[in-house]
């Protein structure tokens, strides 16, 4: 029995290790790429490293080239603006709604909730064509404002869902007591509800920041001048917009830094967010 268990464990470990190697393979391949200068990438065999003393210099110049000459820096800043606005904007709008649905006297709260949440049930392909037409009509096509409005709008239903679920966990007595002390609804909302709902904010912010940061499709359709980072990257690697491979990969790495930071620093909220949306 014991020997059988040993064999079992060895088998599991070797399987996991083989799988891990497949998982790491493209990451290692990409690290090799940014270690080289564009010339070294062309002249050396793929799996031959350049001289050690060149490596740091190459990484630096690949990143600088991507940021400045390939203009990834501008797209990076665009995406930071979009992702922050979508995260904070949708959270604030949804916090008002979640507070009202649970702690104020709204007629037919379920209908209001579903009327708004229904937006989350449709794939966003359903909104693409009309949004493109509306933004053109309103003169907001190819503006940062237009994209921010769309990103916030797409994020609101999910954000409301999180805030409503969170609002149910706050006892109504707190708000009743505040009312007895003479606080109005706005004051209760700003002074009590908002400070107490930080966990809901963290969940909404992480999910919407990452979603907006990773967006490719809206950026492809709604703008030319203010492309978000993923759209810009996808254009850089085309046959025509081509930059050297080492620059493209450096750009892709820069583009990955913000989501990695957000995920690692707010990791526990991320898993909690998923379980919060899983229902009971």
């Amino acid at each position, binding site marked *: 029995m014991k020997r059988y268990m040993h064999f079992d464990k060895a088998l599991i470990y070797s399987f996991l290790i083989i799988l891990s190697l497949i*998982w790491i393979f493209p990451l290692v391949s990409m690290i090799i790429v940014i270690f080289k200068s564009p010339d070294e990438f062309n002249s050396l065999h793929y799996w031959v490293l350049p001289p050690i003393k060149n490596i740091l210099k190459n990484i630096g110049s690949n990143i600088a080239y991507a940021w400045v000459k390939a203009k990834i820096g501008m797209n990076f800043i665009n995406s930071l603006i979009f992702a922050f606005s979508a995260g904070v904007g949708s959270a604030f709008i949804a916090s008002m709604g979640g507070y009202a649905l649970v702690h104020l006297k709204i007629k037919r709260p379920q209908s209001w909730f579903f009327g708004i949440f229904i*937006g989350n049930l449709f794939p966003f392909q359903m*909104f693409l064509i009309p949004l493109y037409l509306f933004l053109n009509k309103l003169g907001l096509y190819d503006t940062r404002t237009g994209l921010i409005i769309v990103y916030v709008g797409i994020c609101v239903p999910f954000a409301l869902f999180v805030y409503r*679920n969170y609002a149910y966990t706050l006892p109504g007595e707190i708000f009743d007591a505040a009312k007895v002390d003479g606080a109005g609804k706005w004051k209760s909302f700003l002074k009590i509800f908002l400070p107490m709902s930080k966990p809901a904010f963290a969940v909404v912010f992480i999910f919407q920041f990452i979603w907006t940061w990773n967006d490719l499709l809206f950026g492809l359709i709604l703008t030319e001048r203010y492309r978000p980072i993923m759209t810009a990257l996808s254009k850089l690697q085309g046959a025509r917009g081509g930059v050297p491979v080492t620059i493209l990969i450096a750009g892709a790495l820069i583009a990955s830094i913000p989501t990695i930071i957000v995920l690692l620093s707010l990791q526990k909220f991320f898993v909690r967010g998923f379980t919060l949306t899983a229902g009971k």
Partner: protein
Amino acid sequence: MERRGKLRTDTLFLIPAMVFVLMSELVPIVYTTYLGFMDWDIINPPKWAGISNYVKVFSTPELINALKNTIYWVLGTLIFAVAFPLFIAALLNRVKRRTIFKLIFFIPSTLSPTVAAIFWRRTLASQKGALVSLLDLFGVQIQPILTNPQINTFVMIGVWVWQFFGINLILFLVGLETIPQEPVEAAMIDGANPRQAFFRIILPLLKPISMLVIANALINSIRMFDIPWVMIQGGPGRASETLAISLYRESFLLFKMGLGSAIAVVISIMTLLASYRYILTLGKGRRA
């Protein structure tokens, strides 16, 4: 009178959310549905087209092919990005050194689908690609992978699995850690073998988290755009198009807004059908 006024100010709190959702979702849903019945090239006024756009979706060879590819994406995702990580989570639950594996499997989930596609495109490229060059060291020659329409959809599903696997693995691990141990132990004492315990006891207890993972996987695979677009623009030709890429091509490159809208409606109906059981669980609310 006073009560009515009060209700109105309470409703004010919901107005901003409603305005944004009306503008960016509810009105577009109605408008896309309407456009699905029209013929429209953006320049001339739209013309009534009845159900001809829907007939085209299910009779044009390119679009039937996109529908078929989309179904491959959905099935591939369910098998390799839902069932497979559940299996790995069950394995990891039995070994001690799991942190390093968790980390390795989770790294791709911190990348965007666009970045994952760029990495793999370079890794699998036939000119100066990582895989080709590695095999070359061992004297092995391989045919181009991404430009082969016979296999490239499946290869790209693999890329998506690589990217999506980690998050589902973590969710299943959280699920496995939080289920109560007593029923499992009781079943083992009653003589159930590990496999029986897994399918009869653990799997039903995992249902809430599995529902979430499955719904999320279905929604994301039915509307798959980023990976096949960034890797090969749905090519070669239109061979690896998904419905989402067909929609983009028909509406924004060929300016057939009606046909594009009909494809959007088809994608929506597929999504709603696939996720309706999950939606029902959300409908119960959590007032308690």
